[in-house]
């Protein structure tokens, strides 16, 4: 199996502080992966690099079958190539309806002129409705998304990600601030999504990670400390030392 995303030897520092230190990471085309690690271990910076927000000082990030170099592309181009990102705090467009949010995310032409003359097709409507069904917001389609609950906003954002039809989903702390039932729904959504694409979940909550039931990568001080099943990493003495607590 060849990797969908291959990060190798990446380092980046801010004001002398090494946020990422010779990090290497791979993920296949249909895989669920959890990334854990203490605060400041470089989880968010890792996502910033893959999505083009931060340029690393050295290393390479290769993408897809043709091994495109993501470091040479703009954020918008990377997103178009199939990398979707969910932020820590739910960022949906609060003064627009759920429908408009989803429609905007739908995989379609992205140029200003194409969008200006865009006509909604029946197929697009159907896709938006199907997505809304999947994220449990089918009856909320025409509500302003700012009125949704915190958990609903999280799902809407996941829905927007799915609408982009990305090949790689980067999800930052999806369970933060959710109730137990909401967490379970989120786990299902992510596991379902990972059947057809790569999903990387950054999470703090170990219970949540355990429920995802996937391979875990532990980051520490900007590089990979351990990798393997949840039981494997939670028994790793180094991981216990720096993260889980002794």
């Amino acid at each position, binding site marked *: 199996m060849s990797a969908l995303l291959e990060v190798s030897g990446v380092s980046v520092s801010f*004001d*002398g502080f090494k946020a990422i230190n010779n990090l290497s990471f791979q993920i296949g085309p249909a895989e669920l992966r959890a990334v854990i690690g*203490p*605060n*400041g271990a470089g989880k968010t910076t890792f996502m910033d690099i893959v999505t083009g927000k931060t340029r690393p000082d050295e290393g390479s990030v290769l993408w897809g079958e043709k091994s495109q170099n993501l470091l040479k592309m703009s954020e918008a181009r990377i997103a178009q190539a199939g990398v979707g990102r969910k932020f820590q705090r739910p960022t949906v467009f609060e003064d627009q309806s759920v429908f408009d949010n989803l429609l905007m995310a739908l995989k379609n032409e992205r140029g200003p002129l194409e969008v200006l003359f865009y006509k909604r097709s029946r197929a697009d409507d159907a896709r938006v409705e199907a997505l809304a069904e999947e994220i449990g917001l089918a009856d909320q389609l025409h509500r302003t998304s700012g009125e949704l*609950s*915190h958990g609903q906003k999280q799902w809407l954002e996941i829905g927007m990600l799915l609408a982009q039809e990305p090949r790689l989903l980067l999800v930052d702390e999806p*369970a*933060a*601030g959710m109730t*137990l039932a909401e967490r379970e729904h989120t786990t299902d959504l992510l596991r379902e999504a990972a059947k057809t694409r790569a999903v990387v979940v950054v999470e*703090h*909550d*170990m*219970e949540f990670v*355990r429920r995802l039931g996937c391979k875990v990568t532990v980051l520490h*001080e900007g590089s990979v400390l351990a990798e393997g099943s949840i039981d494997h990493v*939670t028994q790793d003495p180094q991981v216990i030392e*720096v993260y*889980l*607590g*002794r």
Partner: protein
Amino acid sequence: MLQTKDLTLHYSGSQILYGIDMAAERGQVTCVMGTNGVGKTSLLKALSGTHHRSGGSYTLDGEAIAKPPAHALARKGVAYVPQGRDIFPLMTVRENLETGFACLPREERFVPEQIFELFPVLKEMEGRRGGDLSGGQQQQLAIGRALIAQPKLLLLDEPTEGIQPNIIQQIGRVIEYLRDEGKMAIVLVEQYFEFAYGLADEFFVLTRGAVSLSGSKASLTKEEVMASVSV
């Protein structure tokens, strides 16, 4: 000394804390434990006034605390060492310490030798910029800075996070010293179990924003506490 009753807290609509009743006494370390994301940091924010509680009561030395701005609480003797330390990066170590003078009358505005005795490294680094210090040094600076104002309540949020073991030991000794001195109540939020267990006199374990277990060290076995915070 510190007493909260039915304290709740919200972040833009979502509730983080549910009816927290807790207490802390002078000369004791009160340890708040729990896995990530259960609201420990939010609790400290409510106690330090950086994020106001949405309900419940909060008393210090019997004085009911309304919802004063953070600086007013600091002047009442609440010192806060936040997670991530929040050193002023462009100011020197000395200047960082001096920010605490705001709580003191003019004649008491000097850095007591005790601070440098507790953290000799701060003396060495006195003229360096806070942002240039290593994580461990920054943590020591953050605690030292909090002590300048001679607080009666010291709030510590994850002081060992990302710190090398020898400095952790040193920080542990400082906390013990401050406890035994008996001038202040210490509330410690900590993930590092052995460290926290070793220092604690009282435990409050949080699960999803509510207290799931509490009691003194004598009343709880180590296994009980550990089981309550493990994954």
